[in-house]
């Protein structure tokens, strides 16, 4: 069989292929069908996870689980068809990753609901179960549906990412106000302090949002458009010192402003996570725009300086560092190492392969449905399962960065790079925090954690990423033929009606 293949084919055979090759390239693959298959796969995976949880928790196995899986698939099929219609060349992996992560989060929250309900049944005065506040999975499903609706809406309304650059300063102003609002409103009825952080806005009717999650996206749009228009300023001028090209002092103003804002968040809202996230985002976007390592060195120096000052001035920062250095020493103190220690015990009891979904005790970790949801997954799915989840995040970030590399305009590059990097940094901060790699900070795991604002903002974020990846992968349109205009000397005289 291999003999004829190795021989050069006779010229008569080759001519048809040569003749057909230049006839025009085949239409580039959109890979939308791959996306649909992966979505179906994730729906099946989640149904199995749901069955395992219910079976291990000895809840009744009903056909409800299958309906849930079908409803999940239907929801994401709607998102898929929106992508097919409005962003046909978009990346095929981003949406399935978001869907699977969100679904795994739902399964985990459902599992914690069951655990808390059974704890309340045994002891009606269980403080943690009572504080948890009833089954939350229904509300999270509602937020997921709203999130997907916003995803579709974003894809529908924003047909091209480039005009967003025109609204850069508006986005920046709105974002800054949104970020600062919970910190500067003094009334605790509107801006309450929850778990030590003042990052919520409460509206009448028991409805509250975390404006910082949305401010993140708006500020990224601002920084991308600002850096594109002022890029020359940051790259051209400067002097070489210590074998690095340093920017001029007056060009460093935006960095100082960002640093001031993130320190402000730290001081007034007492939110370490958002502060870190915001500063990292600005630093990386500056680095992407200018390719100067000096910015990173400068930024990290500023950050370390800020941390040292904050450590001296604020008790809650000192407490966090002490909990990180030795959580067992502060186990019994209020606000001490209890959370971290519980999380380490939980991960340790999970081991390599985990206890199996529904067989662990993720409910004895504090905040098991928000900040510590990855710990619950680590306990029940083990190192193997948690690393699969982290690889899903890694691939999601990688696809975003790949779109940033491939897109042909600078604004799109910066925005996609910033959006993708922020997602990765957020996962690093939350997972690093709960595994005692870095000091623990209150921040949500994107798509996994319980919380409407975070989910909504992240769906808008991936809609923007899909929009940019669509622009990156879309084949270049053939140039439009110029309308032929007759030279003025050859044009005929025309009768025109006199305007009245």
């Amino acid at each position, binding site marked *: 069989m291999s003999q004829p*293949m*190795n021989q050069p*084919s006779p010229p008569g055979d*080759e001519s048809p*292929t040569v003749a057909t090759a*230049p006839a*025009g*390239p*085949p239409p*580039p*693959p959109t*890979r939308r069908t*791959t996306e649909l298959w*992966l979505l179906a*796969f*994730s729906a099946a*995976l989640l149904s*199995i*996870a749901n069955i*395992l949880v219910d*079976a*291990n928790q000895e809840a009744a196995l009903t056909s409800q689980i299958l309906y849930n899986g079908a409803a999940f698939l239907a929801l994401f099929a709607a998102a898929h068809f929106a992508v097919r219609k409005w962003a046909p*060349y978009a990346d*095929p*992996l981003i949406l*399935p*990753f978001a869907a*699977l992560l969100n679904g795994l989060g739902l399964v985990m929250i459902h599992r914690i609901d069951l655990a808390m309900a059974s704890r309340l049944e045994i002891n009606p005065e269980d403080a943690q179960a009572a504080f948890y506040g009833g089954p939350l999975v229904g509300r999270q499903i509602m937020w997921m549906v709203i999130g997907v609706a916003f995803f579709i809406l974003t894809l529908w309304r924003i047909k091209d990412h480039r005009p967003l650059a025109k609204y850069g300063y508006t986005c920046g102003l709105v974002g800054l106000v949104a970020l600062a609002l919970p910190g500067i409103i003094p009334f605790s009825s509107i801006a309450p302090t929850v778990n030590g952080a003042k990052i919520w806005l409460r509206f009448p009717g028991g409805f509250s949002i975390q404006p910082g999650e949305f401010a993140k996206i708006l500020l990224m749009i601002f920084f991308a458009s600002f850096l*594109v228009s002022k*890029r*020359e300023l940051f790259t051209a001028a400067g002097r070489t010192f210590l074998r690095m090209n340093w920017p001029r002092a007056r060009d460093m103003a935006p960095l100082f402003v960002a640093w001031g804002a993130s320190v402000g968040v730290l001081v007034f809202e007492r939110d370490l996570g958002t502060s870190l996230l915001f500063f990292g985002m600005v630093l990386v976007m500056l680095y992407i725009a200018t390719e100067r390592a000096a910015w990173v060195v400068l930024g990290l120096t500023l950050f370390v300086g800020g941390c040292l000052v904050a450590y001296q001035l604020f008790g809650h920062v000192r407490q966090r560092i002490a909990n990180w250095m030795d959580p067992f020493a502060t186990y019994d103190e209020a606000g001490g190492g209890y959370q971290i220690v519980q999380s380490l015990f939980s991960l340790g009891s999970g081991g390599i*392969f*985990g*206890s*199996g*979904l529904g*067989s662990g005790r993720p409910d004895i970790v504090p905040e098991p449905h928000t900040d510590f949801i990855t710990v619950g997954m680590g306990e029940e*799915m*083990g190192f*193997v*399962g948690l690393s*699969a989840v982290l*690889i*899903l995040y890694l*691939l999601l970030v*990688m*696809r975003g960065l790949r779109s940033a*590399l*491939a*897109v*042909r*305009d*600078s604004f799109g590059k910066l925005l996609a790079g910033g959006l993708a990097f922020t997602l990765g940094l957020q996962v690093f901060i939350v997972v690093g925090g709960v595994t005692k790699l870095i000091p623990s900070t209150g921040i949500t795991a994107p798509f996994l954690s319980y919380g409407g604002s975070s989910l909504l903002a992240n769906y808008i974020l991936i809609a923007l990423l899909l929009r940019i990846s669509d622009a*990156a*992968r*879309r*084949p*270049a349109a053939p*140039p*439009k033929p110029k309308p032929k205009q007759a030279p003025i000397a050859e044009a005929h005289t025309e009768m025109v009606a006199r305007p009245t």
Partner: protein
Amino acid sequence: MPELVIQLTRAGFLALLWLFVLAALRVVRSDLYAASGLRASVPNTRRAQPRQPKGAKSPRQLLVTQGALAGTRIALDGRPISIGRADDSTLVLDDDYASTRHARLVLRGSDWYVEDLGSTNGTYLDRAKVTGPTRVPLRAPIRIGKTVIELHS
């Protein structure tokens, strides 16, 4: 549930989760060879394709090596490539030293030619200023303002 079933389902679920990751990695792999936006050229190991002799490699993609768009690839499919600050250019430059319609790359026979379209600051092919249509060898740098592009096979 019996212990054995728990153990089996536990391992089975993890295997399925990793299967999803592998399926995703397969998609990543097949995309790895595709240039931005255009035809995917996945190397096919099973079928012996009629290949061109080694000496006469024709450029298959355009690669931006320096400037703001560094890293961008555009697959060459025979259509002319226009370069400039105009929005409808194939490669839209965001560079103060580039003109609105700066230069053009066209295919004649099996060679690509670069042509300056009357730009203010000129187009340079490997340090020589381009005055008329000039043949572009493989990997020769074409300089436009701060941007450098090369043709790769």
